């Protein structure tokens, strides 16, 4: 019995880590490329969860909303980049940060406005609603689905970034936006694309999280705190770093709660502080 508790806790950690990775991957892309610490990312994540809820209620099909909600959120992200963020770009990073902050606030309030203040019931699709036996303990299928889905997204993104022409452009713009601009690539357009894909990823994470955590108004801020820890530990702009750090945080939290529940919260920030102090660019970040 002892072993199975550790195992279940490990899987818990992996599942939450995967969820974190889904959120962090979009954020780290946007940060790595545009230098914008996008606080509104949590808002997009929350928007995804709520949009997903409405689409499921409307159409009754989870898979349908898994595609549609991220697209909706991606469009919202594109609008934000084009009409708001681009205007304050010349004023520097602090103002961009503050702007995304205000946008987060607006999204959060709109969510409360349309969907109310209380957590919404959101059940996983019937295909995944069962649970199975793992070493003598039952485990819901849906969480295992999150795990697999996270891996799929990781591989898709890695393939996109490493193997395609778009990926090469994006990676080049991450390392030196000015140079890419000089080489004749329309950097604002690339920014727009990356920002909307980043937001769409946040929306996707929201939909995935919805049956697991059920949508509630504070979910954006809650996950943002963990996500920031992830991108700081993993290194800004690094996909691999985000992946490793997500799983670290996930495991740290789930074992922390098992062993020393009182200090579980503290560990994460200690880890983050230690990494920032000893290696300011994160575990996998490139030098500034």
């Amino acid at each position, binding site marked *: 019995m002892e072993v199975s508790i550790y195992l279940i806790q490990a899987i818990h950690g992996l599942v939450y880590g995967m969820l974190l990775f889904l959120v962090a991957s979009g954020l780290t892309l946007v940060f790595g490329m545009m230098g914008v610490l996008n606080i509104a990312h949590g808002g997009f994540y929350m928007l995804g969860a709520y949009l997903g809820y409405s689409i499921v209620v409307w159409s009754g099909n989870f898979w349908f909303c898994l595609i549609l909600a991220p697209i909706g959120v991606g469009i919202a992200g594109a609008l934000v980049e084009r009409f708001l963020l681009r205007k304050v770009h010349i004023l520097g990073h602090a103002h961009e*940060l503050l702007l995304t902050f205000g946008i987060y606030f607006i999204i959060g309030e709109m969510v409360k406005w349309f969907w109310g203040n209380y957590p919404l019931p959101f059940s996983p699709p019937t295909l995944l609603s069962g649970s199975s036996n793992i070493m003598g303990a039952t485990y819901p299928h849906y969480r295992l689905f999150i795990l697999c889905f996270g891996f799929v997204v990781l591989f898709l993104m890695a393939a996109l970034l490493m193997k395609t022409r778009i990926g090469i452009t994006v990676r080049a713009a991450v390392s030196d936006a000015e140079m890419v601009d000089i080489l004749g690539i329309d950097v604002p357009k690339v920014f727009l694309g990356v920002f909307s894909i980043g937001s769409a990823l946040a929306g996707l994470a929201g939909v995935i999280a919805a049956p697991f955590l059920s949508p509630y108004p504070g979910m954006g801020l809650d996950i943002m705190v963990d996500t920031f820890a992830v991108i700081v530990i993993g290194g800004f702009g690094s996909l691999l770093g985000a992946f490793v750090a997500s799983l670290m945080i996930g495991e740290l939290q789930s074992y922390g709660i098992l062993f020393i529940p009182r200090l579980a919260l503290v560990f994460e920030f200690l880890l983050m502080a230690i990494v*920032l102090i000893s290696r300011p660019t994160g575990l996998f970040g490139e030098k500034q």
Partner: protein
Amino acid sequence: MLIEIAFFALFAVSCNMLFGYGGLLSMGHAAYFGIGAYTLALLLKNVIGFPLLLAVLLGGMAGGLGGLIVGYFCVRLKGGYFALLTLAFCQFFFAIALMWRSLTGGEDGIGVKKPVFYIPILGSINMRQTTDVYYFVTVIVIVCFFIIWYLTKTPFGNTIRAIKENDERADFIGYNVFLSRLILYTISGFFAGIAGALFAIFQGFVSTGTIDISRSIEVLFMIIIGGTGSFFGPILGSGVYVYFTDRISRITERWEFVLGVLFVLIVLYAHKGLVGLFPWEKIKSFVLSRSKTRGPIS
């Protein structure tokens, strides 16, 4: 409400010392506010008859000490990294306040006994009366404002501004960037601590809400609305913020939405804040030109 404006103004000014003068965006400034508040509450609770003024001062000192320790790690970093690390430390303090129930009472918080005390010339000050609290808070806040204002005029203030403009250049000229920022961070923590202690007196109650992320966010709202970089901006901003949240929340439940829109509009179109909207420069040059033309005649 005026009391609220007073200590929030002090909090905002302390935070603006970092952002406006030092160019350091702190997202965890509530930590020192909370440390100050908890220090005062614990002193008054555990030491009977502890002098209130000393407790406020010690609240500030505790905030300053926190600032010194955290600042030692944080001020080497810049921009987003700095913001995130301060956020992390704030969460760290929040977690301590939440988890260390035997000391802080966790979410239940600590009640602050409002004391009566005597000042030789002015007579007794009864902290149970709102007017007395008002005078007490206002006097302390104004004294603090003068100290901060004086600090910005000293050579130290100029050094800080030089570092904000270009830290590499300041470093080459021979200023100690690290030490200056650390001192700035400590001072800022000190005044935030005093603001927190005043808050504790006003509320009569301290809980984890004082050290929450949303408090750090609130203070950023204030300084952005009022205007960064100028001394009076944050004061105006905190006044507007407290007044508006009070007023709008009576009219509509969606006041946070209105606030968010206002915030975005200010960042977009008036990035110097409300203070920046007034044509100070024009008035200044107008007055100066008047006095110049008048000069030779008289």
